[in-house]
């Protein structure tokens, strides 16, 4: 019998190279637990994120978009 998989969100993340990306790195190094739902893209600055990237992300099937810097 096939088991119904629980919904696991897919989140597109834009992380600033100097802030959030380094923060994510630190979280990894300090072995902090967080959900494996992010698909991250490193950008050189969160100001680099054009609003159109967000609609593009939603269009390509992500459940939400996370911008962090």
């Amino acid at each position, binding site marked *: 019998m096939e088991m119904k998989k629980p919904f696991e969100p897919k*989140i597109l993340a834009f992380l600033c190279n100097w802030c959030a990306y380094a923060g994510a*790195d630190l979280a990894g190094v300090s072995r902090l637990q967080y959900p494996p739902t992010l698909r991250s893209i490193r950008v050189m600055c969160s100001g680099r994120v054009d609003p159109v990237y967000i609609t593009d992300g939603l269009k390509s099937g992500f459940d939400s978009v996370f911008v962090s810097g």
Partner: protein
Amino acid sequence: MELTQYLLDLSGIGRNRLQVRWVSAAEGQLFAEYVTEVSDITQKLGPFDPDKFELPLAAVERTLNSARIRWLLGLTKQITEQGNVYNEKLKKEDFKKMLHRAAEEEYQKALIMQVLEERPLSVKEMAEKTGLAVYTVSLRLNELERCNQAGLKQYSGNAPIFMGM
């Protein structure tokens, strides 16, 4: 980002699909907390179906790409802080209101342009397809005509049929 969230609300997708958080390089703990929080929010919202929101998404994208919105956003600082040569400035709230009004109009125009891309339509058909009121459609259509973005194609009986240009 605030404007994008406003547009997501306007289009029925909901602003919560876009989350913005500030984390510094030293805040690994905070980052982990935010990821958990954003994950929980998305979990509650449930899966996003891009096919169901095809029209609104395309219209939001069109709006964000429109010259009017891009110029306004780019001039935010100048309008609210530096002022013009007469030293007239807009208050931050007034600017935000103006920006939202502009975004709403551009979004309605984008919806119309989007449905006209498929085939020429009458005002009534456009209103049905976009979910806008007939009056709103004719207002925006008028603006589009003045900018040469839409025009009259033919008459079907008494009803004028418009096309995108």
